[in-house]
């Protein structure tokens, strides 16, 4: 029998993403339900119902990375949306009107599925979509956790919303297909099991970066992230991360670093905040050319949604307790742990014009983490998708000065 050549995880990821978008477009063409969802929403319910879902944030990131964001942003601003609004939202509002992108098309939604654990802009952004498109809106309201841990009442509140969403999905599906559609609780359990397994595999793969040197160049993490956003509930997603993990482990075992042989990982840093998608190349090279490897970020944990199978309240807690929705002290402790576990020398903070939630506490977070860990930090201005809010020269100067500080600290440690 002929042996099929083993695909690399990168090829598998490309196939996974192509398939994700194509199957949603096909579903729409076949008259099946399609949802637009926020990036860390309880997809388990949609997956159980067999509803195709696409993630406008993921599409906006792709549009940004392929340098196509400006036309959608211009269109939105022309319609009256403020430049101070999140640029993912402006890209999405533009796409909602123009419906055509060179980078990545998505089908128009039949309903909206929005979860406020990632930020509170999404509440109004997605509500606006539902209103403009005149389609149903399912909202998961997850209040910000001002306490260190998720309180029981918050988890119960979310649990109630999950139960309500199941009923809404049944109603929406029944109406759409003209026949009674029921939520399958056995299938739900299987989906929960798969979602946990895929989350864990994603986490395990990203943790291989703890090796020194790290076999992972963190800008690859930004690519693989598309897979966890869109395929957290699928076996195919699991397989991609498993293959990725095996590749990284093999590299680590061979003592290989993130780049080509001979390109030394001199310093290890983490990235705080969303990527600067329109300037991935500039932000990457600015670090790499100085031997600085971005080993990890807060992304790996954000999609590590783990809970006991069948435990809806546990699931509610997991969605509520993600980094973005946690208080300052919790955030500082998480990053401090990352600094220690990944043996980091420093942190790059992206002061992201779009992201009010992350910027709100960033300065204080930077100050506290620096005090706790003693690592060097640098902050630069940018935006997740708006290309007008970043200057390569300013970025490079900050990164070079950051490098000089890292070198100083290393030299001082060496001298004792």
């Amino acid at each position, binding site marked *: 029998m002929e042996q099929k050549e083993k695909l690399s995880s990168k090829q598998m990821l490309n196939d996974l993403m192509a398939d994700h978008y194509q199957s949603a477009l096909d579903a729409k063409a076949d008259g099946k339900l399609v949802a637009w969802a926020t990036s860390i929403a309880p997809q388990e319910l949609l997956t159980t119902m067999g509803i195709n879902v696409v993630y406008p944030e993921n599409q906006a990131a792709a549009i940004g990375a392929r340098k196509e964001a400006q036309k959608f942003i211009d269109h939105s601003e022309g319609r009256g949306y403020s430049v101070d609004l999140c640029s993912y939202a402006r890209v999405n509002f533009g796409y909602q009107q123009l419906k055509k992108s060179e980078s990545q098309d998505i089908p128009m939604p039949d309903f909206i599925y929005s979860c406020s654990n990632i930020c509170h802009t999404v509440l109004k952004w997605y509500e606006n979509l539902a209103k403009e498109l005149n389609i149903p809106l399912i909202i998961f309201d997850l209040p910000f956790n001002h306490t260190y841990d998720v309180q029981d009442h918050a988890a119960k509140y979310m649990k109630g919303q999950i139960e309500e969403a199941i009923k809404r999905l049944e109603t929406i599906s029944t109406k759409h297909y003209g026949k009674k559609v029921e939520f399958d609780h056995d299938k739900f359990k299987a989906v929960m099991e798969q979602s946990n397994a895929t989350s864990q595999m994603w986490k395990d793969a990203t943790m291989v970066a703890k090796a020194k040197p790290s076999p992972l160049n963190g800008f690859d993490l930004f690519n693989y992230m598309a897979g966890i956003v869109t395929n957290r509930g699928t076996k195919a997603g699991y397989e991609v991360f498993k293959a990725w993990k095996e590749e990284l482990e093999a590299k680590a075992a061979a003592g290989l670093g993130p780049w080509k042989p001979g390109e030394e990982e001199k310093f290890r840093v983490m990235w705080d905040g969303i990527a600067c998608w329109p300037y991935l190349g500039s932000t990457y090279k600015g670090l790499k050319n100085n031997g600085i490897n971005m080993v990890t970020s807060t992304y790996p944990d954000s999609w590590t949604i783990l809970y006991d199978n069948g435990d809806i309240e546990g699931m509610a807690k997991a969605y509520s307790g993600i980094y973005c929705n946690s208080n300052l002290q919790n955030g500082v402790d998480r990053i401090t742990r990352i600094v220690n576990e990944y043996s980091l020398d420093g942190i790059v903070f992206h002061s992201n014009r779009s992201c009010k939630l992350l910027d709100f506490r960033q300065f204080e977070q930077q100050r506290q983490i620096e005090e706790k860990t003693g690592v*060097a930090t640098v902050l630069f201005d940018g935006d997740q998708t708006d290309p007008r809010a970043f200057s390569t*020269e300013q970025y490079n100067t900050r990164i070079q000065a950051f490098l000089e500080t890292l070198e100083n600290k290393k030299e001082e440690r060496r001298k004792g």
Partner: protein
Amino acid sequence: MYFLGVDIGSSSSKAAIIDENKNILVRVARNIGTGTNGPTLVINQALEEVGITRDQINFTVATGYGRVTFTQADKQITEISCHGKGVAHLVPGAHTIIDIGGQDAKVIRLNDKGNVDNFLMNEKCAAGTGRFLEVMARILNCGLEDLSGLAKESTEEIEISNTCTVFAESEVISQLAQGTAKADVAQGANNSITSRVAGLARRIGITPVVVMTGGVAKNDAVVRCMEKQIGYDITVAPDPQTVGALGAALFALETFNKK
């Protein structure tokens, strides 16, 4: 032996030459920056004043925004490190440096060894930078160097509330149209720029001795304003505009000795 430091900023070019014993032989500055013949002019002037030629320089370090396009240096080092180096040499015990440059403002924290421990730079825009004062000087129809003297004649405190340089420009024009005295506007501009930069300084944490560098530090009224804002005395580095160039020259010597 001779070591050259060149600091090519957005609005001025500076050069310094030292010998192998860190003696400062010359420091020069001209108010034309990157993209002009400014760097060549200051280097030639510095060489001439010391009485040596270019080929007698043993090592050159370039700094400032123009360092990347300047091809005649042996090494580039950022202005953050160079200001740190220069200040540590000139002002023993310095821990906090406030530098207001043409297109950015920075606050640098030095550790006890005089090395850069941390730094912050202005965000987003020209607010809190020397460019802001340049714009103000233009509206007031005076030279940048005359702003300080003008501000000292201020009798009434006015506030320029816009941090955006372009908005502040229109705000000031309307103030002048309403008859506000030029001196009060000049002092208002000083208050505006220093409050922005003082915010940066407080964020990084202020530890004395606090030193100001950069051309703006020659503006005594700005320095006094800054002292008031941060609540610490400020030492102005001797010949503050050329501190970055001096730091670059010191790095040139250090790098040469390591080789």
